[in-house]
């Protein structure tokens, strides 16, 4: 279980990016949504340790991880699939999956992880994580790494950006399979109705504040309705395709 208490983050330039967020994650799937710039990525970076909060506390299964390093949190069971995956010249897909699976693992199931994200292992395993991979391919490799890690808390920052030529159904299957294996929680930042639809809990962040937090049935109808809020949330991301 992840507990976030009064979490705030002020950027170096003094801007209040996140203010006083309280959130508990114990469900299977927790979706974070809200307009661009609302603070979603910031909140998950604070959880994974990429940013240090200015105030507040983060507990993972009762352990205070607020001031732990990224490495320590990763070792305690936090995985984070970036919104913008990084490229690493010279490192191969197989290298990254091996590192993700853990140093001592001998038989890494490269084929399994890659086929789960719709990539053919034989075409990708020796590819370098460099500019020759498309954005969509990178996103799926990022998801495969999270699968290989198989930890009790996994965060996906807008995973749907990688599903060109793939499908929502397959992406949702990845989340379900991951939960089956880890029995943990999965936090998914998303604007997509199809993903919000599988969430046990939906959280809405706007202007750095948590403005809604409830079950899917409590929150989703409001988001999909014709209220101004809903339009802002969905159009904020989907643009012309909405």
């Amino acid at each position: 279980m992840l507990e976030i208490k009064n979490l705030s983050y002020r950027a170096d330039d003094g801007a209040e990016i996140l203010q006083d967020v309280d959130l508990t994650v114990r469900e299977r799937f927790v979706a974070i949504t809200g307009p661009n710039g609302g603070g979603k990525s910031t909140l998950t970076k604070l959880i994974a340790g990429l940013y240090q909060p200015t105030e507040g506390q983060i507990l993972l299964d009762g352990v205070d991880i607020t001031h732990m390093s990224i490495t320590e949190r990763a070792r305690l069971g936090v995985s984070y699939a970036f919104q913008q995956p990084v490229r690493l010249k010279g490192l191969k897909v197989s290298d990254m999956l091996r590192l993700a699976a853990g140093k001592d693992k001998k038989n890494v199931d490269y084929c399994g992880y890659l086929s789960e994200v719709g990539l053919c292992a034989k075409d990708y395993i020796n590819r370098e994580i460099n500019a020759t991979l498309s954005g969509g391919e990178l996103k799926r490799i990022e998801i495969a790494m999270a699968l290989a890690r198989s930890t009790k808390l996994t965060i996906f920052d807008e995973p749907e950006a990688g599903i060109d030529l793939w499908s929502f159904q397959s992406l949702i299957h990845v989340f379900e399979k991951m939960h089956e294996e880890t029995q943990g929680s999965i936090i998914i930042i998303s604007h997509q109705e199809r993903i919000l639809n599988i969430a046990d809990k939906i959280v809405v962040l706007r202007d750095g504040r948590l403005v809604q937090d409830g079950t899917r049935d409590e929150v989703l109808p409001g988001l999909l309705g014709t209220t101004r809020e809903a339009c802002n949330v969905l159009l904020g991301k989907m643009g012309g395709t909405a």
Partner: protein
Amino acid sequence: MDEITLKMLKEVADLDALPTGAYNLRENGKAAGRNTTANIDIVTKKDEPGIDIIVKPGTKNESVHIPVIISQTGLKDLVYNDFYIGEDADVVIVAGCGIHNCGGSLSQHDGIHTFHLAKNAKIRYIEKHYGEGDGTGRRVMNPSTVIYLEEGASMTMETTQIAGIDDTIRLTRAEVKAGGSLVVKEKIMTTGDQYARTDFVVDLNGEGSSANLISRSVAKDNSRQAFVSDIRGNAPCAGHSECDAIIMDNGSVSASPKLTANNIDAALIHEAAIGKIAGEQLEKMMTLGLTEAEAEEQIVNGFLS
């Protein structure tokens, strides 16, 4: 062979024993073993130190190993090796050099390698430089490589200097005729107060000739590196060079790529990127459970792999 020689052979030529096929082992400035085959001859030069390696036309699936080991402190070794590769031959040449310097004096190996590839000959040339030893004596290597590619000839040169060489100036000069192709893949890592300079001049003289120089380097601690290249397109040709460097600590890298087009159909491109490891790259690795130091190591190893 003693333990040091064996270890150095492993480091520079990935050999566990003397190789099969043609070879010439040079140790502490002297010949220490040689084998020739029906198609590959090795002859000691008469007027200067070094050897001629002569590969008969049409020779395929054979290799030549010419490792050089220096384990004597204070030794300065200079050698001229000439390679004559016959028409249509296709062979692999492995030339490693290792310096094990436990003493207090400078040990140095300067190799001048000249390649003459006849029409349509093809070689893969692998060269690895390595130094070790806890003495205070500097380990120095100054390799020069001169390459003449006749029509349709092609050469791939893979050079690696990952550890232990304090000072190196590497010169590569090439002339490529019509349809000839040169590919150079260079990897260099410097640490401590090491210095490495690599300097290429390639003349693309014939129609359809090409050159591709790819350099990847890492400069750590207070080490310094310089990359200098000049690709001269004197005919309709394609030239590309790429210098990619990571600097760490107080490392310094300077890249001076030059392109000279003397023909309207010469297509020449250069790419260079120098920088530290990006914060987000380290962060990604750390989210996989690696420490910052482990993350750096993985990124550097991958970059130089």
